[in-house]
């Protein structure tokens, strides 16, 4: 059993959690990846751009807590988890840990820190070297950090760690190779390796998603036991809200590089505030036959992270979006394409010919859209069509939020011009009377006088 040098016993660490003593403080963290422009992009003169994987995250990790980073692919949850351990280099911001700023540390100075900050990866089959026996693999951190004076000491510690993760009797596993172990056993061995050097923080990136249903609960239980017995702090990175609900104390919902909602697990699940959180919760398929997945899913697709929408990244998919949520020219094209799905082929062909080429709308960030009529009509016809659509949408059951962002629709120089409201980035603000913070204009009293009444998940 590894013992903690500075936190005498596990129970004190748990008490620390109650007091909310911070372990790591993340401030305005940014991890941007430059897209390597190849020869082709140099020829065409198009800039390669940047992917803002993590874009301005503020977060405090408290000792002994399990914090869930939840989101879909491309939300930046994995990058954020890896950056905590210095596996990705931040391009801005700070990660404060024990008086040091991890964001600025060189690899050489970061390395000793990793004794205290450990990671468990998603795929247990890929996390263990296939030609390294379990004794060597699990004992590797001791060697790297010089924590075992002799082979006997190393073996004793390895046995202890294996027993701790339930690989019992440990002697039976020492000389085995990863290929001799099942998926669940491998993930246990990975956890043994992660705890052997007596860490304080464990970042677990989808640790159970590659395992079978019948084993997932076992590994989750093991991680809960490790937290209680060793006083570990966990960052649990996942897309699976059901396991996050069971495992986490607090949850941060991420969308396109930002935290959109942060609160205690109880609060986030009982009363999700951000429209994206609501959508996620409503979309989880449940084996309970009495509960059906909502038919009312957010429209559209997860946007391209290299060209994120203006304002709130979720606005193109949000049914409740306001004028300041970030409407821009590309949203007009998406709006029209969505409409075309409902048209008969002939009607669609007519509109397509009238509207002509829409590719000019695709540039991100255009607050003005200029539509030149195609072969099928005049600018007046285009204007008439758009005005008719705006009226129809206003009369419909579900008002189309797109038009809220349109501040002008007019003829100008033989074309139709649309102007959009100035976008505003929603900031993570505390919700009055609750412990949750939400980045959404709907919950910003300064922007929306009356929050539209919305029924949660079941809507």
């Amino acid at each position, binding site marked *: 059993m590894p013992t903690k040098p500075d936190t005498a016993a596990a129970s004190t660490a748990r008490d620390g959690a109650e007091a909310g003593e911070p372990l790591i403080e993340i401030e305005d963290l940014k991890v941007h990846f430059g897209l390597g422009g190849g020869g082709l992009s140099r020829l065409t003169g198009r800039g390669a751009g940047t992917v803002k994987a993590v874009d301005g995250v503020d977060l405090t990790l408290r000792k002994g807590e399990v914090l869930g980073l939840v989101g*879909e*692919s491309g939300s930046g949850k994995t990058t954020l988890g890896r950056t905590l351990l210095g596996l990705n280099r931040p391009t801005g911001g700070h990660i404060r840990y024990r008086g040091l700023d991890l964001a600025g540390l060189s690899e050489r100075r970061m390395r000793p820190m990793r004794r205290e900050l450990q990671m468990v990866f998603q795929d247990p089959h890929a996390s263990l070297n296939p030609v390294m026996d379990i004794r060597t693999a699990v004992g590797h951190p001791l060697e790297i950090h010089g924590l075992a004076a002799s082979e006997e000491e190393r073996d004793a510690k390895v046995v202890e760690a294996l027993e701790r993760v*339930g*690989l*019992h*009797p440990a002697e*039976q596993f020492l000389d085995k190779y990863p290929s001799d172990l*099942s*998926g*669940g*056993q491998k993930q*246990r061995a990975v956890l043994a390796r992660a705890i052997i050097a007596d860490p304080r923080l464990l970042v677990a990136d989808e640790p159970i998603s590659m*395992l*079978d*249903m*019948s*084993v*997932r*609960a*076992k590994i*989750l*239980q093991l991680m809960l036991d490790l937290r209680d017995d060793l006083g570990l702090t966990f960052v649990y990175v996942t*897309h*699976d*809200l*059901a*396991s996050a*609900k*069971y495992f986490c104390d607090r949850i941060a919902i991420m969308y396109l590089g930002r935290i959109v909602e942060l609160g205690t697990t109880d609060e986030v*699940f009982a009363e999700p505030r951000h429209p994206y959180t609501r*959508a*996620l*919760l409503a*979309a*989880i*398929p*449940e*084996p*309970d*036959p*009495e509960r*059906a*997945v*909502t*038919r009312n*899913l*957010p429209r559209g*697709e*997860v946007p391209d992270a290299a060209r994120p929408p203006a304002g709130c990244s979720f606005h193109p998919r949000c049914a409740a979006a306001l004028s300041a949520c970030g409407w821009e020219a590309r949203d007009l094209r998406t709006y029209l*394409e*969505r409409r*075309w*799905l409902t048209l008969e*082929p002939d009607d*669609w062909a007519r509109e*397509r010919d009238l509207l002509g080429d*829409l590719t000019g709308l695709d540039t991100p960030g255009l607050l003005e859209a200029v539509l030149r009529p195609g072969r099928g009509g005049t600018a007046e016809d285009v204007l008439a069509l758009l005005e008719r659509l705006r009226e129809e949408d206003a009369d419909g059951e579900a008002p189309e939020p797109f038009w809220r962002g349109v501040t002008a629709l007019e003829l100008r120089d033989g074309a139709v011009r649309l102007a959009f409201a100035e976008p505003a980035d929603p900031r993570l603000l505390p919700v009055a009377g609750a412990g949750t913070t939400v980045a959404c204009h709907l919950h910003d009293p300064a922007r929306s006088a009356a929050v539209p009444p919305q029924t949660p998940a079941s809507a």
Partner: protein
Amino acid sequence: MSAHVTSPEPAPAGTADTSRPVLSVRDLRVWYGTPRGPVRAVDSVDFDVRPGETLGLVGESGCGKSTLGRGVLGLAPEGAAVDGEVNFRGTNLVSLSKKQLQELRGPELGLIFQEPMTRLNPLMRISEHFAETLKTHEPGLTKDQVRERALEALRGMGIPPSRYHNYPHEFSGGMRQRIMIALALVLRPAFVVADEPTTALDVLVEAQIIRILADLRRNFDTALVLITHNLGIVAEACDRVAVMYAGRIVEQGDAREVFARPQHPYTQELLRSTISLSTTGLHYIPGAPPDLVEPPTGCRFHPRCPKAMKVCAAVEPPDVLLNSGSTSACWHQAQNIAGAIPPEHATDGREPLALAEEISVADEA
């Protein structure tokens, strides 16, 4: 093998045509040769799928669900042996030649793969994918007809017609999976196997695909077998469910009924160990699925079963048709049938099975 307690209800008059199965599988076996002996991946499986019906096939990895799905379509890997009957509209697919099967695949039998990212040709436009598929199977179609059929299929999947000439990389993962489904359905096959169609996808995209699959059975007469390890998806999108364990179907019935009142202990344990939003305590099945070279005697689940009796370890339980319409292969239901328990187990067969040794982590999955 089957000892039926009650007879199935007669089909209501007038619906005889739609209630006749499109595909009827009887005693299907698929096995692979290994140096240690044959692996019986699918071992005597029976099921029917009717027009417009979705059958969910669930189980842990290695239970044989994917092998079964492929085997039905004649796509079992090289070196696998297939035996039994797969009756598709009066033809036994198992007895057909490769070439004959090839002709049926597409217009009659469809397959939707997992990992949509890797299944479209990156150098071909979406329009070319559709043209190739349609021209191969229906050479008489004109260019305009191809376009019309393709756009109709794409529209059903929520892909705007203006994106018809785009390349696969211009679509998101969810859109690509919807394009794959459209490609499988554009030929209007009577029977489709969807093999983990949402496994690599995100929560919201998954919900979208589930909705599309659920709508499919309302709007088309396509019979669908949906293979998944996610019980939630079955509850959402399937009419009936078949639960597989170690190469066998252990319980089969109406999806709502099976999830509300699971009868087979394996189904009960699987449902209990699933982590869902309503999970308040963690539960798991001890041990691991058996080695299919030497499966356990009697009921294959008995070494892990909390309710195992002595007869379970000795004799294989028959399929029992229950009053709910489900079938379950478990001695807890079969013991009530007179004469089902062989005479040599009649006296002590119902006694609880004392497990020789506790199952430890050493045996876990």
